[in-house]
């Protein structure tokens, strides 16, 4: 299958890209790595008249430190994220999730910004940035704004991004010295998870001092398991030590039922995977 015809624009600055979006409104679609959008266009689930390629805007690429934040440009590829020493050091769970995302070829093209803007509830990176308390930098005709992750992901493939806006960067508070682990349950490698859990923990004297836990595919969008986070404080990082806290992973979830498993099965998985993720994040 090939996409329906469209015009192609390849701006080299964010301003040019915004002008193109302003001109073409909802007839336009932005393409980043194209790894989610091109399959959609090929199946003709979407037929934009204009495709605006962000691939030639250099300012959207790269990973840098800004005080106690890590700033990842929207067009930074999955490959760059997973091999980045900065990401491994300050946001270990994101590096680990991106390691397990899709396959090598897709990771060479797909971008962090594209994945977050796509907001597939089964996408691997949303629960990581949500649980780490990241903020998304968004630019539109009215200038730039910063949206906390918990206000960015609104639902199934739905974000706070307007049609005339571009996600430019992700600001992640540094979690230096924290352990991170992404526990992904799949039937087929290189595919989206049935359920996955993003866990980051900070230990003090052998017990858990702080924890951040995000859930993938346990509802129409990514969820933060705050009940688990609270209950983990003071716990010993062993499967027995975290089991009770991990059971709270189902609180407030609304998992889908599909060919891979029904909602009850997913709830069961969430508890089991949370316990595993937390113990592994603690180095166990």
């Amino acid at each position, binding site marked *: 299958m*090939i996409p*329906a015809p469209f*015009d*192609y624009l*390849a701006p080299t600055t964010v301003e040019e890209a915004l002008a193109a979006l302003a001109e073409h409104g909802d007839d336009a679609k932005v393409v980043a790595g194209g790894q989610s959008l*091109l399959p959609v266009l090929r199946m003709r689930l979407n037929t934009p008249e204009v495709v605006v390629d962000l691939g030639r805007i250099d300012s959207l690429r790269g990973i840098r430190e800004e005080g106690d934040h890590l700033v990842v440009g929207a067009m930074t590829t999955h490959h760059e994220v997973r091999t980045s020493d900065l990401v491994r050091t300050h946001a270990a769970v994101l590096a680990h999730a991106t390691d397990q995302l899709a*396959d090598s*070829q897709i990771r060479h093209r797909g971008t962090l910004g594209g994945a977050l803007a796509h907001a597939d509830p089964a996408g691997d990176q949303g629960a990581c940035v949500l649980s780490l308390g990241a903020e998304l930098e968004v630019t539109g005709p009215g200038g730039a704004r910063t949206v906390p992750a918990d206000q960015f992901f609104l639902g199934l493939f739905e974000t706070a991004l307007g049609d005339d806006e571009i996600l430019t960067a992700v600001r992640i508070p540094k979690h230096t010295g924290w352990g991170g682990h992404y526990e992904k349950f799949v039937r087929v490698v*290189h595919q989206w998870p049935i359920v996955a859990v993003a866990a980051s923990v900070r230990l003090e004297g052998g017990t858990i001092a702080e924890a951040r836990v995000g859930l993938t595919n346990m509802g129409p969008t990514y969820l933060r398991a705050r009940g688990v986070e609270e209950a983990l404080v003071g716990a010993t990082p062993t499967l027995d030590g975290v089991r009770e806290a991990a059971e709270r992973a189902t609180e407030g979830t609304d998992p889908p039922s599909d060919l891979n498993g029904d909602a009850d099965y997913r709830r069961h998985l969430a508890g089991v995977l949370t316990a595993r993720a937390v113990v592994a994040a603690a180095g166990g």
Partner: protein
Amino acid sequence: MARITLTVDGEQVTDDVEPRTLLVHYLREHLGKTGTVIGCDTSNCGACTVHLDGRSVKSCNVLAVQADGHEVTTIEGLARGGELHPVQEAFRECHGLQCGFCTPGMIMQSIDLLAENPSPTEDEVRHGLEGNLCRCTGYHNIVRSVLHAAGGAQ
């Protein structure tokens, strides 16, 4: 129509293409490079793998216009003066193929994998090839081929 200029297998080409043209269709239908094949509709199989600026990509999931100004290498650009690339040679030597349909993509991905990790373990080879599907071999000889190319005693 959009005008694109890129380097394919070492040669510069310029063409007018429809923006919706997929890179794999451009390679096969405009340039006649049918060594790169199409095995699926969902970007799962990896048969269409080529290198874009030296990194593996699935050419069914890239627009030809996105490759404008860049460098593409296909399975047809690997042999030098009639000599097979060492990874091609290893697939021949270790019977890393049966029907051969997945082979162009397997070889392009294996070269990428070895460039990043010149002495992979068997497990790393299997992970590195997870975006490439084979319906014939059961993968064992493909993995052996890659380890052989890496210089292991296979």
